[in-house]
């Protein structure tokens, strides 16, 4: 790692300070090494970058805009800007990553994609990429999540994917990751594991962040245009595994003075309530008990229901470049409604965590009146509308 460059290349060991690494069974080491080499080659190949850029524009709908929020800003006394990843094809930032990994998998000659999903957004995105690239697709999803995200299950099936219910453990995202890894151990010859966040063994945390970096790079330029050359004082994003946060932070971490804030679910706050540990191929911050058994996260939002966070986030917290806070389910429900009412935008429950933190902190030292905050609106809330209706009108 180049010590001076924040959010750069973590080198062959995949280390972000004391976090990261590649803690996988021997059977998967060669696959991770191959993937790292393939990504390194592709990422420095102009033809790959041009093809990815073309797909993100003409298929994915990029660039996404940065929107001002006049009514909300007026109400809370803080200038709020939204990076509109909710406008990406399939409704969240997840597409950026799967188009990148799908292209890479095709380049590596793989014919099958597997993925884990929590809320279903990454599963839908992977199923979409599989359709786009004509590949077989299997998505692992916890039984609990299947129950609360039924429509996304049907969506994946429409897209030609097979959704395999996971009945082990807490039957949520972490168990879906276990099951996808188990599949991959046996299928690695023809299968690419399309991991959905900046987590897992090297090169995933780095590779997924690079595929999401487009969010931050676009947003920085767009903010400068809107703010007369200036940067926002704060950049705020929600974090489960942390891919949308990593993507937007990557545009601001190194060469701006913007403060970076990630908001975890209060019931799944790996960095605010966890301990260092090793799970799913990475050393990072994890919710665990005193002997190291992993604890089950619990959140209103299936996408943040994960007991860990990407290793680079643990590192950014370590060195103080980013701060990690949490929002409660109630704050999130309130924020969900506030943004809908004031701006006509229904956010994903995940993204509503970032809004909730802004609402809770506007006017405090964290976010003084008159300051400007850029929020990554990582996804749209259509998938959550039925769940929220049931919660608000029981």
């Amino acid at each position, binding site marked *: 790692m180049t010590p001076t460059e924040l959010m750069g290349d973590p080198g062959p060991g995949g280390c972000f300070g004391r976090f990261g690494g590649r803690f996988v069974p*021997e059977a998967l080491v060669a696959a991770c090494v191959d993937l790292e080499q393939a990504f390194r080659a592709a990422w420095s190949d102009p033809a790959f970058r041009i093809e990815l850029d073309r797909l993100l524009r003409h298929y994915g709908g990029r660039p996404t805009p940065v929107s001002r929020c006049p009514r909300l800003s007026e109400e809370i006394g803080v200038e709020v800007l939204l990076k509109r990843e909710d406008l990406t094809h399939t409704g969240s930032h997840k597409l950026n990553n799967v188009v990148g990994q799908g292209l890479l998998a095709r380049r590596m000659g793989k014919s099958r994609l597997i993925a884990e999903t929590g809320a279903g957004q990454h599963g839908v995105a992977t199923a979409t990429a599989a359709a786009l690239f004509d590949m077989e697709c299997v998505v692992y999803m916890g039984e609990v999540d299947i129950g609360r995200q039924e429509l996304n299950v049907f969506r994946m099936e429409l897209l030609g994917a097979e959704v395999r219910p996971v009945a082990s453990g807490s039957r949520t995202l972490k168990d879906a990751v276990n099951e996808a890894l188990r599949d991959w151990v046996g299928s690695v010859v023809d299968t690419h594991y399309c991991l959905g966040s900046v987590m897992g063994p090297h090169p995933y945390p780095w590779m997924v962040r690079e595929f999401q970096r487009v969010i931050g790079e676009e947003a920085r330029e767009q903010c400068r245009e809107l703010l007369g050359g200036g940067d926002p004082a704060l950049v705020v994003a929600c974090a489960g595994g942390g891919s949308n946060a990593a993507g937007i932070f990557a545009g601001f971490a190194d060469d701006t003075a913007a403060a970076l804030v990630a908001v975890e679910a209060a019931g799944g706050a790996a960095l605010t309530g966890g301990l260092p540990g090793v799970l799913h191929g990475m050393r990072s911050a994890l919710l665990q008990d005193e002997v190291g*058994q992993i604890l089950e996260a619990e959140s209103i939002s299936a996408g943040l229901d994960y007991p860990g966070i990407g290793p680079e986030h643990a590192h950014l917290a370590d060195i103080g470049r980013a701060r990690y806070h949490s929002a409660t389910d109630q704050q999130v429900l309130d924020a969900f409604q506030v943004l809908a009412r004031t701006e006509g935008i229904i956010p994903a429950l995940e993204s509503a965590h970032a809004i909730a933190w802004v609402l809770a902190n506007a006017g405090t030292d964290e976010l003084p009146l008159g300051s400007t905050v850029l929020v990554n609106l990582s996804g749209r809330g259509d998938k959550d509308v039925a769940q929220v209706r049931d919660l608000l009108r029981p």
Partner: protein
Amino acid sequence: MTGRSEDGPPTGRWHDGSPPEQSTAQPSLLEEVLTARKDQGHKLLVPYLTGGMDDQWPLALEAVAAAGADAVEIGMPFSDPMIDGQTIQEASRRALDRATTPEGVLAEMGRSRVGIPTVVMTYYNLVFRAGHHRMAANMAASGVSGAIIPDLPLEELDPWSEAATPSGVATVLLVAPSTPEERMEAVCRRSRGFVYAVGRMGVTGEQAELAHTAQEVAARALRFSDIPVCVGVGVSTAEQAVAVCEVADGVVVGSALVRRLLDGGGPEAAAEFVSQLRRALDRG
């Protein structure tokens, strides 16, 4: 975050792909016993069972040891056993439901009258959380002479092996059918006790047929190993064990044994299965 493990997280000192040469550590009891048995012309039999899976597991441990095992492997139950199939997942779940802890498993192993070397299989987070030195010392105090940590690859091994080796705990490393040639050599040279050759690309679990990769991976490992090579994962029956041992020095048999215990067969059924394997291997 509110804390870290006692001896700090490993820093991953070398990542240039070239493992340091194995120091001239004294061989562990595990390696001495297995090597001696092999040199006497025996095929090695290492049964596995999950610690804490039921209230009779210490008796099952003693029973399989007495039934002709050369060493016995005890799994620490972990919440997220990602390299294990359904049988060992179920055993792990039952063990955790019984509030089994790593220290409890080690304490029980220390009390048991086994008479052969014992090996602990554990996912790395349980070691990391306890701290490398504390876990190594606890293992040694319970008479454990080997450790298998399947999610701790060669590149991340140093902080653990520096604690384990001086405590007399040999770290058994794994090779897989996907392991490339150069790496196979590096892993075999670094492994202690025995080399664990993963017989098939997949998670643990019983298989109707022995994978063609089982003998191949053993043969490849044997070219680089001067300690015994045992094949595990997908070795479920006496016939399969015998077939693997046409090439390998021995076998690890886990899920097939654990299933008999999950089904309620108790120490008797476990011992019966292990003696059946023993007789088959001795007949060759």
